[in-house]
């Protein structure tokens, strides 16, 4: 018992646990993605196998990769870098373990519940009420833990990564219960069109106030470290941080373009979507200027390469985003695979790449072991990059075919055969991404088991 307690009190435990479980969800979640992709190629392939039917497998895929893989790995990184940046220890490792447990119970509820149709069905808020509770608890506990860690810091100034990580927890603790309409436990929704407004308020807080701060925070930590350069501008960090939360929270309306929501919401969401270039370009500019002239260092480092590529995906996503929120463009790009392309480069490209890069960078610091294989990290990078670039091209093409044809009067049924080849190619590209998930898990596991132990002195040096 006391041995158990001692284990729970190890400061690096929860961070590692979040990474390991996140990488496991990466495998499971993408396998569900493949199932859904196959459903769209050969709809009778899994005929009448209820859990794998598209309408049930897809939410399992989306929630598992989102809340399981990307977010968990990034939280794991944060649980390491926040105390490290504050020159202190995590306030309560046991509480963080509890958060980990509650979080994973939530994610596990996805494959189990959705298989039987137990879902609240609104995109990104599918977990049923009981697991909304576990998730909210996990977030609140983490928020307390981090705020207390800040209170107990030995470093006076708060680095920008700390702002983002703390902000994410504070915001999500409010945004998640509201978005999930937790005061209506049975449906997780309010009645009527207002529900759409609430859903997409959350729906855009999820990328905006969960994934973006986590990923940008991690990039702010990793990139200057690998480049061994100071942060370029404190002012830009400030502008990027505060405009993020001020603007991102206003753009949910762009998910229901030309829909029956009030015009002022639509106008606001379009304008603020344009304005989103401010936090994005400010953060990117700050990061890239920080590593100016030292990009080679990031490219040479397997972890750095992932993070750097993640920032490039961020650029692409956030050039695409404002453009596709223009009504004239959205008439064609909405409702089809164009948006699925955007989602994948955003969540896997931007947030996922940075999650993986930050994890590979932090893992040795955290575990005291060198990476089992840098070549496997490179292999993973290659597989994902090939797969995702293919994904993006294929889905964008399919989306333009669909959107253009519909806009010119073809019926959806008639256009289905036109996208068939792209649905097939997407499934093929997906296999590469899944392979990368397996490679990553193997490398992680072997690092923890077999990685060469780093001499304590070297480790101290690396930490300072």
């Amino acid at each position: 018992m006391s041995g158990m307690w001692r284990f729970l009190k190890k400061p690096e435990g929860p961070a590692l646990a979040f990474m390991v479980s996140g990488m496991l969800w990466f495998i499971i979640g993408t396998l569900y993605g493949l199932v859904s992709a196959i459903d769209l190629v050969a709809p009778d392939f899994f005929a009448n196998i209820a859990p794998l039917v598209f309408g049930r497998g897809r939410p399992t895929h989306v929630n598992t990769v989102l809340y399981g893989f990307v977010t968990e790995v990034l939280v794991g990184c944060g649980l390491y870098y926040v105390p490290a940046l504050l020159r202190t220890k995590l306030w309560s490792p046991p509480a963080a373990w509890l958060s980990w447990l509650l979080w994973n119970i939530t994610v596990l509820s996805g494959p189990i519940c959705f298989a039987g149709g137990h879902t609240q069905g609104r995109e990104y808020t599918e977990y049923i009420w009981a697991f909304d509770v576990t998730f909210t608890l996990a977030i609140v506990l983490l928020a307390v833990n981090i705020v207390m860690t800040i209170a107990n810091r030995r470093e006076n100034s708060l680095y920008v990564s700390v702002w983002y990580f703390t902000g994410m927890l504070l915001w999500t603790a409010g945004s998640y219960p509201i978005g999930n309409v937790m005061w209506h436990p049975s449906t997780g929704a309010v009645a009527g069109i207002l529900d759409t407004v609430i859903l997409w308020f959350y729906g855009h807080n999820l990328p905006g106030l969960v994934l973006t701060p986590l990923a940008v925070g991690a990039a702010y930590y990793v990139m200057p470290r690998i480049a061994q350069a100071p942060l370029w501008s404190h002012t830009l960090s400030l502008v990027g941080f505060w405009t993020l939360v001020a603007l991102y929270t206003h753009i949910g309306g762009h998910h229901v373009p030309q829909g029956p929501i009030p015009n002022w919401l639509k106008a606001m969401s379009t304008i603020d979507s344009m304005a989103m270039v401010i936090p994005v370009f400010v953060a990117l500019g700050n990061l890239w200027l920080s590593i100016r002239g030292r990009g080679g260092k990031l490219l040479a480092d397997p972890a750095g390469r992932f993070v750097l590529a993640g920032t490039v995906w961020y650029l692409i996503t956030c050039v695409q985003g404002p453009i596709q929120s223009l009504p004239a463009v959205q008439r064609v790009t909405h409702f089809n695979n164009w948006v699925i392309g955007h989602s994948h480069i955003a969540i896997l490209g931007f947030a996922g790449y940075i999650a993986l890069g930050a994890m590979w960078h932090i893992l040795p610091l955290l575990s005291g072991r060198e990476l089992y294989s840098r070549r496997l990290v490179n292999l993973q990078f290659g597989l994902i990059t090939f797969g995702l670039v293919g994904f993006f091209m294929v889905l964008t093409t399919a989306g333009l075919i669909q959107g253009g044809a519909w806009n010119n009067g073809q019926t959806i049924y008639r256009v289905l055969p036109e996208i068939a080849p792209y649905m097939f190619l997407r499934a093929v590209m997906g296999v590469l991404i899944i392979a990368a998930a397996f490679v990553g898990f193997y490398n992680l596991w072997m690092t923890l088991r077999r990685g060469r132990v780093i001499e304590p002195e070297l480790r101290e040096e690396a930490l300072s």
Partner: protein
Amino acid sequence: MKVTPALLVIGALLTFWASMAIMVLLPAATMHPAPSSTWRPWSSEEEAGNTLYVQNGCSYCHSRYIRTNDWDLGAERLAEPGDYVAQEPSILGTERTGPDLSQAGGEHPDDWHLAHFTNPRYTRPQSLMPAWKFLGESDIRLLTAYVQAQGGRDADTRISRQQRWRTPAQEAYARGPDKNIEWLHDQVPHGWLAMPNPYPPLPADLARGEKVYQDQCAGCHGPIGDGQGLAAPYLNPVPLNFTLLRRHLTDGRYLGGMLYYQIMNGITGTAMPYFKRDLESEKIWDVSNYVAVYFVGYTDATMEPRGIGAAYEPAWTNPYTPPQTQPAAASQPAAAPARTEPR
């Protein structure tokens, strides 16, 4: 500006909750749309259907609102905020792998939905929608009730039109195949009956007609046009066996116009859908020729009256002669007295 813990925590929370007030509370306080003119409450069955719709993730492939630039299913009516009153949850959807369903009620009769939900490929051979057979018939009934309620009062109007025609269609079917066809043709506006297919069935036209047929019709009428498609066991009346048409030519020679009209317009009350949205005019003439040539074994293409010849059609002489129609047992002879030409 130095970011202190207090500034961080209080500032982050204030900004977030202020935005929340603008983006959630303000709408909640101001959005109270009155029910739209077509709105009506859902019955308990329809409500249960909505639950199934949510549970089975129909919303990942179907939207429930129509925009100004839509043409497909339901495009006759733009979405209004008052359409969704009291519906909880009312998921609008962000993806259209399948068509918008907000106005789907009454598009098809229930037997079409039974076949379609059992396996969508039965009625729509190219569909990507999952088969829902595993849900069982009672859930499929609830889902059907839900779909039939989409569109509110407009849907009710369409449903009553379906029902208005369903009884006579089923009665005619019960009177036997020939009586059925006579009844069907009695409903076709006269001008369409004595009209030949104006376009020749050249090999390219027939190849196109075949593609259209396999993509759109084969699930019901069967690959060889005998009405024995995979959907047939679920439908009443069953899909037509085209070979029967050989003894039901108008004036002993015409069928092209009838085929065109029936395909374009569908047969309300039966599973036969309209194709005016899916198929442009040329494709309907092509599939008509395909059905005529391959399943009826005769086409009236390019016969008189043909009006001014279409500019681009190559010359083609119709090699078919009208079949010697035998008076079918229990049926009027098809070679009825010639009707006067429509003007």
